[in-house]
């Protein structure tokens, strides 16, 4: 049979059973639409994570103590107290690839201004923290190393803290707040940064000199972690090696022994985040693909019913000269048409749903040509795959058996 006639015959028999055709197609439509939407969500979150990470600067390193075991009990990573300020000094002196380094401690603090109060994280760092993180101030200035040496009671606060303690448009530089009952002078306001990719508000912070937080607020002698930046991005591996050597020597660890600290670069974090969102994408797409598969089984089911119902028609066609191949093609094309048409509608709906998600839920979505092509290919493959068995069943009938079928 010619292709044109095959298509005509297939379209006609699909049109004869409009409702059934539509319901069969619905399985594919839902499957394809959800694959498209899920991939769009996955891709979108991946891209927004990558975009955020790339703004942080790629030459940053974080150093924190490894999870340690004390008396056989594993402790939370970073909970060890093995890092001290001497480690920072040693790195500063002996690591040429490091441009800046700061110790870090973090405590939670209860902030009070008059009758307003607010609870947030208080970071203790060196002034060069602002260089490492490329953090700018909208008002005031950064504290100095002198403030650190004297454990001066000065602080820099984020916009969220300003809003909650002073009101949205206030500029409280020069004012005093109490942090855990200790009065601090506000000397700067950080630039607004918004949420990071984990949904944390980056403006909800208080940054104070390292010694101030360590001694006055936390009253400890250790440091929780260090943040450093390499001279250039290319020097990150060197910087990492130098830090390892210096810290191992300081902690009396042999070269073959496991370090008691971990170094993370910004690239590591970026890779981790990307991998996580990649897994998320795969997971979402897999779930959606299963619904596409179920749609395919729907096609197979209906085609099997259709072959049985139309056994006599098959017999008539064979009696006037249809070959097995002609019958096979006829049913296969019907299955393919259902899945292709379903795929087309599914892509349209998937794109629309993704836009809706973007507009209403404000989630980042990215629709890629690949995801459209892939679901299209996938749905036609499903049409052929699940249409094949019923079609072959029809093609293998004997003319006389088909004609006699009641």
């Amino acid at each position: 049979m010619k292709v044109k006639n095959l298509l005509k015959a297939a379209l006609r028999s699909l049109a004869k059973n409009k409702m059934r055709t539509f319901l069969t197609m619905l399985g594919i439509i839902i499957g394809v639409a959800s694959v498209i939407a899920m991939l769009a969500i996955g891709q979108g979150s991946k891209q927004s994570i990558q975009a955020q990470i790339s703004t942080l600067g790629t030459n940053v390193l974080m150093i924190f103590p490894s999870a340690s075991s004390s008396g056989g009990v594993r402790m939370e990573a970073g909970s060890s107290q093995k890092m001290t300020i001497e480690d920072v000094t040693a790195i500063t002196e002996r690591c040429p690839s490091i441009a800046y380094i700061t110790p870090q401690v973090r405590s939670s603090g209860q902030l009070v201004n008059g009758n307003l109060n607010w609870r947030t994280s208080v970071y203790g760092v060196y002034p060069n923290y602002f260089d490492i993180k490329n953090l700018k101030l909208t008002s005031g200035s950064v504290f100095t190393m002198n403030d650190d040496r004297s454990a001066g009671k000065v602080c820099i606060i984020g916009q969220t803290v300003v809003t909650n303690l002073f009101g949205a448009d206030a500029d409280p530089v020069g004012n005093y707040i109490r942090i855990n009952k200790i009065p601090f002078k506000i000397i700067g306001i950080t630039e607004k940064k918004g949420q990071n990719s984990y949904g944390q508000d980056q403006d909800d912070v208080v940054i104070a000199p390292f010694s101030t937080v360590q001694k006055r607020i936390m009253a400890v002698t250790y440091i929780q972690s260090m943040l450093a930046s390499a001279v250039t991005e290319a020097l990150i591996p060197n910087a990492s090696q130098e830090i390892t050597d210096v810290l191992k020597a300081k902690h009396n660890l042999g070269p073959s022994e496991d370090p008691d600290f971990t170094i993370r670069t910004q690239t590591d974090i970026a890779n981790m985040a990307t991998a996580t969102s990649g897994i998320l994408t795969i997971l979402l797409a897999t779930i959606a693909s299963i619904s596409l598969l179920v749609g395919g089984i729907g096609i197979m089911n209906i085609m099997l019913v259709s072959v049985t119902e139309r056994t006599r028609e098959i017999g008539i066609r064979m009696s006037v000269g249809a070959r097995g191949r002609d019958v096979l093609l006829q049913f296969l094309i019907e299955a393919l048409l259902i899945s292709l048409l379903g795929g087309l509608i599914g892509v349209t709906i998937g794109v629309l749903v993704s836009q809706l998600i973007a507009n209403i839920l404000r989630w980042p979505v990215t629709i890629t040509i690949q995801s459209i092509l892939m679901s299209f290919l996938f749905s036609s493959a499903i049409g052929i795959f699940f249409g094949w068995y019923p079609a072959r069943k029809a093609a293998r009938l004997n003319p006389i058996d088909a004609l006699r079928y009641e």
Partner: protein
Amino acid sequence: MGETIISVKSLVKTYKMGDVEVHALRGVNVDIVKEDFAAIMGKSGSGKSTFMNIIGCLDVPTKGQYLLDGVDVSSLSKDQLAALRNHKIGFVFQSFNLLSRTSALENVELPLLYNKKISSREMRTRSLNALEAVGLADRAHHFPNQLSGGEQQRVAIARSLVNDPVVILADEPTGNLDTRTSIDVMGIFQKLNQQGITIVIVTHETDIAAFTKRNITFRDGKIIRAIEVDKPRNAKEELANMPVLAEEEL
């Protein structure tokens, strides 16, 4: 005698139903020559349909030889058999076997769809001609359920002849029709036969068999008699002489 179109030797067909064997044909020998018009008769269950299905290449014999137009059919593949049904055989069924919800014209076109050599335009004209030959040109766009039994059978005949077959096989073509319509249908067969088409029909009725040139009688899966019809009835004349009044009273 002209050339032999159908040549059957010791044809056997046995159906196995579990342990029971049904011997539908037990050694049939017959030759049908070009331009023959034969009627196959016999009691119910004597093997007529089985025989027709085999010579129509819809079924295969258990044993025996069958030459169609000089070709040994048993050596052919499924696809070649399909091509044979398409080009050389026109089959007419007692129950019409038209595609439902498909117009008369498209039903007639069906065999041409499976004939790659024919263009869409030619398909149309040939189908219309075939409908014309059975007197149904004005019903081309009717669906089977909008046609009478006689008209449906004529559509089926048009379908059987649209591909210029060497033989038309009709299994009880008048079985579901009244007397007048039956004569009508026999008239069409006589006309086609005069144009040179070989025809074999199955019928229970001697009246109908009298329109053919040769009567072959089956009993218990064997041919027991084959006779030339002395003076075949002429459907055209009989229809012309039928009292018109009697028809109107019906």
